[in-house]
């Protein structure tokens, strides 16, 4: 026993060639976002929805540029024409090309949805982040305000704000932002509450990092997955609300037309020209459908624990 010498070279790593295979790292290391993208790409439904949405977005940008028709270009010689080679989706009672109007509607709806969701995300993250991180009395006050706002019937409150601000895209976006941010704020707060007691944020605190640095460098990036999922589901909700308001006649002003306005305008002629309603109805349903499935796919990809 005792004649074994404890020489240093016994404790050196083996030369590369003699190492057993099981120890080597077979795959390149995968970051969270790469991993999530790989999971998302395998989700056929979500990928299909992404393709549909991309096509709608491309049509929204390209079609009005490629045709000579304008969304408000009236052609009294071609009123209420059914779909044909010259007007793919037909024309309305003023002879306006419905394809072009649907594409302009897509611009409005997508802009409202994306801008409203983005502003919501910023407001919700800052508000929820502060509330969750500081806790105590700050949290109490901030969350009581949210409780009261959530109790308000949001649609009534949006309609009131719209009456006050007038019928423009900006006022719709503002009205939606004033009501929707509360849910994002609550969600971010819950995330931050859970993360702030984790070891890495304690470590950052011990090392003397400032509150802002801990919130924006550690807590927010680590709750990005759920935040993105929440915001993705906000986009269809915002598009739906805009269409609803326009349908009731308090959304976008004529002659501009969002999808809601187009459906509303087509009701009186539904007996004779049903296609005038059909195309905007399909466009809005497809868009909301795609966004919801993209949201589902993102949730499964970004947070596998939440998978249903």
């Amino acid at each position, binding site marked *: 026993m005792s004649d074994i010498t404890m020489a240093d070279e016994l404790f050196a790593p083996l030369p590369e060639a003699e190492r057993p295979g099981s120890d080597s790292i077979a795959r390149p290391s995968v970051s969270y976002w790469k991993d999530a993208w790989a999971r998302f790409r395998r989700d056929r439904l979500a990928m299909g929805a992404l393709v549909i949405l991309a096509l709608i977005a491309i049509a929204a940008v390209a079609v009005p540029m490629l045709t000579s028709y304008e969304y408000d270009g009236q052609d009294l010689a071609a009123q209420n024409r059914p779909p044909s080679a010259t007007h793919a989706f037909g024309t309305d009672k003023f002879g306006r090309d419905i394809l072009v109007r649907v594409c302009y509607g897509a611009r409005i709806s997508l802009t409202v949805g994306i801008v409203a969701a983005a502003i919501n995300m910023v407001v919700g993250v800052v508000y929820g982040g502060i509330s969750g991180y500081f806790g105590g009395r700050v949290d109490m006050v901030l969350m009581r305000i949210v409780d009261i706002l959530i109790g308000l*019937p949001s649609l*009534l409150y949006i309609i009131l704000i719209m*009456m006050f601000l007038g019928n423009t895209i900006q006022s719709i976006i503002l009205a939606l932002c004033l009501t929707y941010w509360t849910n994002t704020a609550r969600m971010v707060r819950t995330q931050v509450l859970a993360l702030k007691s984790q070891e890495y944020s304690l470590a950052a605190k011990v090392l003397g990092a400032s509150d802002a640095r801990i919130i924006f460098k550690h807590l927010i990036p680590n709750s990005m997955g759920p935040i993105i999922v929440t915001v993705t589901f906000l986009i269809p909700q915002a598009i739906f609300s805009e269409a*609803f308001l326009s349908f*009731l*006649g308090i959304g976008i002003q004529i002659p501009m037309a969002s999808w809601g306005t187009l459906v509303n305008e087509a009701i009186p002629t539904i*007996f004779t020209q049903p296609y005038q309603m059909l195309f905007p109805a399909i466009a*809005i349903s497809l868009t*909301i459908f795609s966004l919801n499935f993209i949201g589902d796919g993102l949730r499964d990809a970004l947070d596998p624990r939440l998978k249903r």
Partner: protein
Amino acid sequence: MPRYILKRLFAGILTLLVLVTLTFALMHAIPGGPFSAADERNVPQSVLDKIAAKYELDKPIAEQYFAYLARIASGDLGISFKQEDTTVNELVKQGFPVSARLGLVAVIVALLFGIPLGIASAVKRGKWADWASMILATIGISIPSFVLTVLLMYLFSVKLRWLPVFGLSSWKHYILPVTGLAVAPISYIARLMRSSMLEVMRQEYIVTARSKGLAESAVILKHALKNAIMPVLTYLGPLVAALLTGSFIVERIFAIPGIGRYYVSSIGDRDYSVILGMTVFFGAFIIVSNLIVDVLCALIDPRMKMEG
């Protein structure tokens, strides 16, 4: 337990107060609104005099505010400033019973279809009921209710001529409006019921019930249902709000003389005092129904006693 109820009651009253304050502020702030300077408006002098006298517009604003609060508290919702001799209370009295009957039928239909569909899709996963609820949920999410209602009207009233288009005079008249109102709630209730049923069926007391030799139907209907139905009951509060906004659309499309149609037409007429008075009414209605549902759930479910 009483503490929880008191807390909810307090929050409800506070929310209502915020809503009323908001409407009061908007009455003053809206350009051409009922309380703003007289020269911006196109309103009969007799109505102006009536409003000025009623709301004591010559008094300081704080006094006006408290007088307004007192009037709302006593149930006076204000007068129309577009139609002479019309009060908001009269419109509510005429329209509310019509809307309430329609809404009640829709709630019953939503529960009668949603709950069994949810149970069936949880018990027989992957079978037809599961597929039906999945398809319904997809439709409920992606097709906005106003589009769906118009499409249903086109199909059943215009194309097939099975059902009447306007009014509410026979049971046949109820079918389409109730369907338009109930499809989204049915799909939501079915999904809610399905997931909560799946959750409950994994519990140990279900295993106990089965091992006692109970028939599967008794296990599901007597043991599982009691606990699984709680989320659906909680949803009844938000459902009231959803049906209210749904009624704006359905009553407009089918020309039903309910309160939703009065609200939408007063938006079209820019009859601000009616809009604001009705907003207070709707808001109070939604907040009170949420409160009742929450308290009932707390009374039924002993687990809720722990919280709050």
